[in-house]
């Protein structure tokens, strides 16, 4: 084929192959659309390649190692060693397995994949630069699913030893000392993982608390665990500069007006993410972004240009893979002529910290502002048979309900498997379940979800496994 300005016609172009884009592509293909998926790096996006999946693999490895060195069940003695290179190899194999799976699904659904960088040259045309050529595609519809990237601090430019989470996930050795700027969920997850691998970790957080979006009773439990693993946490800290040398990096920061420094092998900067909307040629498409760089969309994900949709991290809302996937399905269905809309009651959010944290819906304060009366029920892991028998007695489930109707409006889980327990609670909220519904549903014994049932009974005033005060 001649290289040049030949324009090809495509029904649907999806820009970005992350958890938003590939899901949208598959759903659109299922609905009979001819789909071209453009991905500039790896299918699966940040989530599969540089985010959710590899970080969870590393966290699991760290957990495993920690059990080895600290012991889990008394009487079982381990002698553990770590070959971090092999751990990384295993992690890579996990990622590969997942991305290959996605690749197979895309191909099986007849989605055409093109590796390259796409930008708009008009409201119905994109230009794709591959390694070897440039090609224009004229589309009937387009879904922008380009995701987000780590915010770079002007004072701490990324370099050999100042890392984003991507590099931090791929270190070939366990660093002796790791400094983390940002006590959000990525900072806490990776900080705890590396602390378990043996790194001496310092976390600097600008606000007065780590995980600032979460309730203090949640962060207290995380702080306790961080302390146990000798992670130093400095709150109210403002990172000023990082000076790299051949062997280490000196991070200077200010706290309470006092300048301090920490020397580390690496500094991980994780202070938020920004949408990838600046290099897409959105002007040419006639689409404007807001002051945060986000693309305004309607309830189906449609932008101001009705042929173009946007989903995931490039639109408003939490930058979460599961939100992107949901929106991807809605956009694909809308393009296929269905009446789908972004219409969820809640989005669960999980922090794979130690202990795990998972929240959904409203917290108690938010509920208090919306409902005249709020009822809560909290039940501790320590009184649950399964929790104690897996040696994970730390944590609790808290339910928040409309006090008048008993309808569940929010839930918080801190403790082992919180990431899995939250699913029942998200379903309960979507199904308008009441505290009674939860209490009257038989939960298998002995399992962690019994804590949910007990928490509902606490809220109703009749817990079996807890004495009333």
């Amino acid at each position, binding site marked *: 084929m001649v290289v040049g300005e030949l324009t090809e016609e495509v029904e649907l172009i999806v820009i970005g192959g992350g958890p938003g884009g590939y899901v949208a592509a598959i759903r659109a293909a299922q609905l009979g659309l001819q789909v071209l998926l453009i991905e500039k790096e790896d299918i699966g996006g940040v989530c599969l390649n540089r985010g959710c999946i590899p970080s969870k693999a590393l966290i699991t490895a760290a957990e495993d190692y920690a059990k080895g060195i600290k012991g889990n069940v008394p009487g079982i003695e381990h002698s553990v060693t770590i070959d971090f290179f092999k751990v990384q190899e295993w992690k890579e194999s996990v990622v590969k397995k997942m991305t290959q799976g996605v690749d197979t699904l895309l191909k099986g659904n007849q989605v055409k994949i093109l590796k390259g960088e796409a930008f708009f040259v008009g409201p119905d045309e994109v230009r794709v630069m591959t390694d070897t050529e440039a090609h224009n595609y004229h589309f009937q519809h387009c879904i922008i699913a380009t995701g987000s990237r780590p915010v770079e601090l002007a004072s701490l430019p990324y370099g050999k030893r100042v890392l984003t989470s991507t590099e931090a996930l791929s270190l070939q050795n366990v660093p002796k000392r790791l400094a983390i700027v940002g006590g959000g969920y990525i900072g806490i997850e990776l900080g705890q993982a590396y602390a378990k691998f043996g790194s001496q970790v310092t976390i600097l957080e600008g606000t007065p608390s780590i995980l600032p979006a979460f309730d203090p009773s949640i962060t207290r439990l995380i702080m306790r665990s961080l302390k146990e693993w000798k992670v130093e946490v400095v709150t109210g800290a403002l990172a000023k500069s990082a000076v790299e040398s051949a062997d280490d990096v000196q991070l200077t920061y200010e706290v309470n007006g006092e300048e301090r420094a920490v020397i580390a092998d690496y500094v991980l900067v994780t202070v938020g993410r920004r949408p990838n909307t600046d290099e897409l040629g959105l002007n040419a498409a006639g689409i404007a972004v807001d002051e945060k760089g986000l693309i305004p969309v309607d309830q189906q994900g*449609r932008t101001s240009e009705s042929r173009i949709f946007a989903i995931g991290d490039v639109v408003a809302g939490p930058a979460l893979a599961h939100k992107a996937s949901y929106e991807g399905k809605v956009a694909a269905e809308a393009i296929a002529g269905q*009446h789908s809309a972004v*219409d969820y*009651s809640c989005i669960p959010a999980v922090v794979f910290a130690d202990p795990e944290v998972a929240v959904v819906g409203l917290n108690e304060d938010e509920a208090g502002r919306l409902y005249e009366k709020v009822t809560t029920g909290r039940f501790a892991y320590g009184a649950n048979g399964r929790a104690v028998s897996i040696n994970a007695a730390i944590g609790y489930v808290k339910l928040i309900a409309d006090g008048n109707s008993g309808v569940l409006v929010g839930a918080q889980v801190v403790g082992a498997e919180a990431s899995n327990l939250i699913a029942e609670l998200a379903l309960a909220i979507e199904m308008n379940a009441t505290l009674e519904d939860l209490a009257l549903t038989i939960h298998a014994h002995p399992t962690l979800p019994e804590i949910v049932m007990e928490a509902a009974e606490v809220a109703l005033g009749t817990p079996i496994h807890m004495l009333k005060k």
Partner: protein
Amino acid sequence: MGIYQFEFPELGEGIHEGKVAKWIVHEGEWVREDEPLAEVENDKAVVEIPSPIEGKVVKLFFSEGAVASVGEPFVSFETNGVTENSNSEMPKTSIEDAGLATTAHEVKQAEVESAGITTLATRAMPIDRKVPNEETIPGRRVLAIPSVRKLAREHGVNIAEVMGTGEHGKITRQDVFAYIENQDGDEPAFNTTEAPHQIKPSEEARKKPFFTSIHEDIVPLSSIRKSIMEALVKSKFSAPHVTMMDEADVTELVSLRNELKQMAAVREVKLTFLPFIVKAFIAALKKYPYLNSELDEGNAEIKLKKEYHIGIATDTDRGLLVPVLHHANHMSMWELAEQISILSSKARTGKIKLEEMKGSTASISNIGSAKGLFFTPILNYPEVAILGVGRIRAALVRKDGEIVDAHMMALSLSFDHRVVDGAMAQWALNEVKEVLADPKRMLMEV
């Protein structure tokens, strides 16, 4: 003793205001719960507003004839202590008992009470109407499970408008179907003279998914807009209209009006062409009385009206209103000019009374003021004729073998072809033309 302030309640879906037609109570009077306070009129009906509580009327916030909007202070009461303490519940039952369903939000009741005044947002609406789900507090959810929300979307139903019959107002699949069903058939049975076309979402509109969009702003229909829709649909679908179009040579009328302008200025009257057109129209109606009639299909008869009440279609911010020049045939040109200017200003400022918009026997619609020429006016049903007036344009016309400057006025006469045939309509239009062309004839018509 406590003060209880009663806010003007919603009278029905989409009805956000009402005119206080008559106060039944007066200040200082002791009223019991449920006793009527006032008669309030909207474009659909007159509704009695019952008292939410027992107490002494301290203040009536509106004078008769004034328009009250939902949520505005309406009546304040002095109540005894018992009532004050329990009034968060009381208004609810009282209005329900009176045949109105209420959803009440006791929002931060404590805060308000501590300020010494108890307020309560009551939203009263006739019980046979759909009661929107209670969740009007932003952020609060409408109780409906995802599959039911999807069902609603697929049928173009705003889930927030569906009344939930489940526990705690939860909306079930059946509720969504009931809502759709209601939209199809909750109108009363019509008699034969009424059009079978009622305003309801079309099949297509219903299939449109409900969601908000950045491509469109959703504007709920005002009660006036709804009335306009209903009236026009009824007219267009029951009376087969035909429109005759023609031009009147108003050269002489233009110069006459120019002469009279000074006199008008002295009298402080704004003299437009409209009074002349009214006169000319009445001349034609008199000559062709079938154009000033009403078809009574039920009794198989045509009522020829002996009075000439001319409706004047008036463009206002709130929508098209048609104030009526009652007994226009008895009015002098000056009286017509004055009356037109009073009525149109009342219509524009929203001060027009319902009776000032009733009883017309034929109407005039003027598109000339908006620079329009010919058009096909819709009858102000059940009238049989409407005269559409276009702009006056300068033209060269042949008169007595010579090309002369003239002023031509565009006229469009729509009529109900069930009552009047084309020839008669054209003769009537010719009469209008002739009178307008020869202002001296107007003298004879007074």
